[in-house]
């Protein structure tokens, strides 16, 4: 059951989820050459002044990649940070292109699932459910 408004992190639960897809996900995470050729396929990247935080690979490496790297031992604050990457910076339109064919949307979706297990999802407390509008 997802926890609501809890400040703690259930590391074991995260680890159990990470273990589920460990082989496939780590294989793809290690394969990423960091070439950033995926960037231009993301319309958010193109719209937001080509900010690196909108690059598909950045979003994956700093969410799912980080979770695997730290073996699930992450703080609440780190998870909250990932929330922005996974929901605010990604519409999950599944259109990102990877020169190597890495399945980025599936990895984002998996990272979202892990965050949801900790009661973190795309509903931002200060809005009506949609990411805040940025001016400019």
């Amino acid at each position: 059951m997802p926890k609501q408004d809890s400040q703690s992190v259930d590391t074991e639960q995260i680890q159990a989820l990470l273990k589920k897809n460990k082989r496939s996900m780590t294989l793809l995470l290690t394969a990423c050459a960091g070439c950033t050729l995926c960037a231009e396929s993301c319309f958010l990247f193109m719209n937001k002044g080509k900010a690196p935080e909108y690059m598909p690979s950045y979003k994956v490496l700093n969410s799912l990649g980080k979770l695997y790297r730290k073996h699930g031992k992450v703080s609440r604050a780190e998870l909250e940070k990932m929330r922005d990457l996974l929901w605010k910076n990604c519409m999950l339109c599944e259109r990102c292109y990877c020169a190597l064919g890495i399945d980025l949307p599936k990895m984002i979706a998996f990272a979202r699932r892990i965050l949801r297990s900790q009661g973190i999802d795309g509903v931002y407390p200060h809005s009506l459910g949609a990411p805040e509008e940025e001016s400019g």
Partner: protein
Amino acid sequence: MIIAEKKQLEEIKAMLQGYRKVLNVGCGGCTSVCLAGGLKEVEDLCTQLTISLEGDRVVFEAEGYTVERQCEPHFLAQLDEIVKPYDALLSLGCGAGTQLLAERYPDKPVFPALNTVFIGVNRDIGWYEERCKSCGDCVLGMTGGICPNALCAKGLLNGPCGGPKDDHCEVNAEVPCAWIRIYERLKAQGRLENILTICPAREWQDQVQGTLILQPYRDRYAKKDK
């Protein structure tokens, strides 16, 4: 998800006749997912139009911008400055998105680049199947999760009709009869009694324009001057 397909280039060109500077507005929602109106398709359409009209010796310029979702005003806000220099807008959103775009920029002619075809499911890459008619009165609970309104050619609620041929629809031999599927699924689940009783005439909910205000937001939209 809402499924749309691109109109043929010839049709789009005909609509744009006389406009020299056009902005193609993509949508990062449904039409992006169904490979009809995302960033890539926006770029494609710009290329197609520019090259094709160049061939026709027409002075023409097309650029693209993809918003998160065309069906939400706050996502369209970012276009307010962008659209200014353009003669016309070409929307790669669904019918709803296109209309909101047209509503936001009433002085700009807005044209649809897509045909919105149905609400459906993603079977495989580039393969979509209709599932829902958004009738506003869901009967899936009765019919074992198979919609007779969307999947039966006659939309029967007390099917099957007399026509199925080899368990397929008489209208299209490639499509399995929805009612035979309903019967078989309910039989397997031991819920046949659902369709042994008569389903009465429906009160159609989709015959006027729909508006929906959720209860928690009722006060938010209450008239201020009261």
